[in-house]
């Protein structure tokens, strides 16, 4: 058990080192997010009421777009360098790799967004009482986006010509996530039930992710 945990710990250490050395990528994502917010603010104009009504939807749309920017590197580097095979030969099944990579994507890509949400809320004039529910909805929703990102980027490995296909799939599949996430923030009565629905979606996608991703990785390595 200790050996197993040690392997997992060093897998995350490896991901940490890779992500820290590629910190500019994380910074680029966050910069894209904030610049897009400013573009919305300038295009709508100094109308606080419109901004605070549309703010949550704008934030969610931008969070979705920003997190899709990081999808190209999800599995690509490990696939190209042969590390996927080496990890597989050393006791990491493709399904297990999918779970670990999804968690590390959440930690290193989505958590910086969660941290920057309060600042974004101030910029878009979202009332402070909504920030709390926005953080909860994004914490759950972003993990769903990481799972969807894992599936779509493993599908991208099967397709050598069109790297954007995966991002398109993520966007289509994330529509229900956005509907419920924005619903959570704008509702006053059904808060808990909508959180439960969003959490249910997370559990379903989290269960599907390893099998779907594992199968795609296996086929991609066979076709390589």
């Amino acid at each position, binding site marked *: 058990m200790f050996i197993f945990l040690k392997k997992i*710990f*060093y*897998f995350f250490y490896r991901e940490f080192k890779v992500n820290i*050395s590629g910190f500019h990528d994380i910074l680029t994502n966050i910069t894209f997010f904030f610049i897009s917010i400013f573009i919305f603010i300038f295009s709508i104009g100094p109308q606080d009421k419109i901004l605070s009504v549309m703010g949550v939807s704008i934030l969610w749309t931008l969070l979705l777009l920003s997190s899709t920017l990081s999808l190209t590197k999800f599995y690509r580097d490990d696939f190209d*360098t*042969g590390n996927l095979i*080496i990890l597989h*030969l*050393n006791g990491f099944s493709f399904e297990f790799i999918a779970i670990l990579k999804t968690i590390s994507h959440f930690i290193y890509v989505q958590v910086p967004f969660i941290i920057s949400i309060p600042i974004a809320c101030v910029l878009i004039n979202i009332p402070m009482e909504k920030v709390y529910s926005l953080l909860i909805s994004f914490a759950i929703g972003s993990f769903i986006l990481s799972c969807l990102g894992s599936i779509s980027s493993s599908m991208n490995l099967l397709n050598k010509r069109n790297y954007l296909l995966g991002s398109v799939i993520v966007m289509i599949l994330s529509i229900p996530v956005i509907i419920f996430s924005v619903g959570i923030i704008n509702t006053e009565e059904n808060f808990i039930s909508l959180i439960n629905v969003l959490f249910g979606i997370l559990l379903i996608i989290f269960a599907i992710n390893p099998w779907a991703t594992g199968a795609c990785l296996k086929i991609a390595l066979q076709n390589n």
Partner: protein
Amino acid sequence: MLLTKNISLFRADKIIFENINLSIGSGKILGLKGKNGSGKTSLIKTILCILEPTSGSIFWKGKNIEKNLYDFYNNVTYIADKTSSLKQLTINENIKIWKNIFLSKINNDQIEKILQTLKLDSYKNKKTNILSLGETKKLELLRLIIENKKIWILDEPFTNLDSEAIDVIKQTFEDHCKKEGSIIFSSHQNVQINTTEDLLL
């Protein structure tokens, strides 16, 4: 230990290889020789069960390999024709990650000695993206010692290496065979290795 019986691989109606029979036991070296595109890498990937043979079977310790896959994987180190070291990290960081993910028992003094033999010791705190192709290959081959497994499967291990490094690798192969290990390697180069058996593809 490892046996293939009439394995064939067809891809998109093209015959990659056909009716290959191999057996490799303790202390043996098998060389897969052939030109570029002759199917050496595909054969290696088939042996590793990454590609599924169109026909034929592979056996590990007398059992069909599919039923015994993780035991086989516990005994095999694969060196691909690609670089698996992470370019963003230093040699030492790469080694630290390999040691811990592969649960290696090798100690730092042993690693230091090997780095000196491979003339990589002066770069150990430098990122691997500054290494030449040959030095990157040497670092890759270091994984054989770190993983410390019985079967070594290597795809084009001599590419980009100078004669001095090739001699070190030859010596390492011989030492591994003396310890009852087995080696399968592919090469399109004319490197003189005392193989037990050669297969021309």
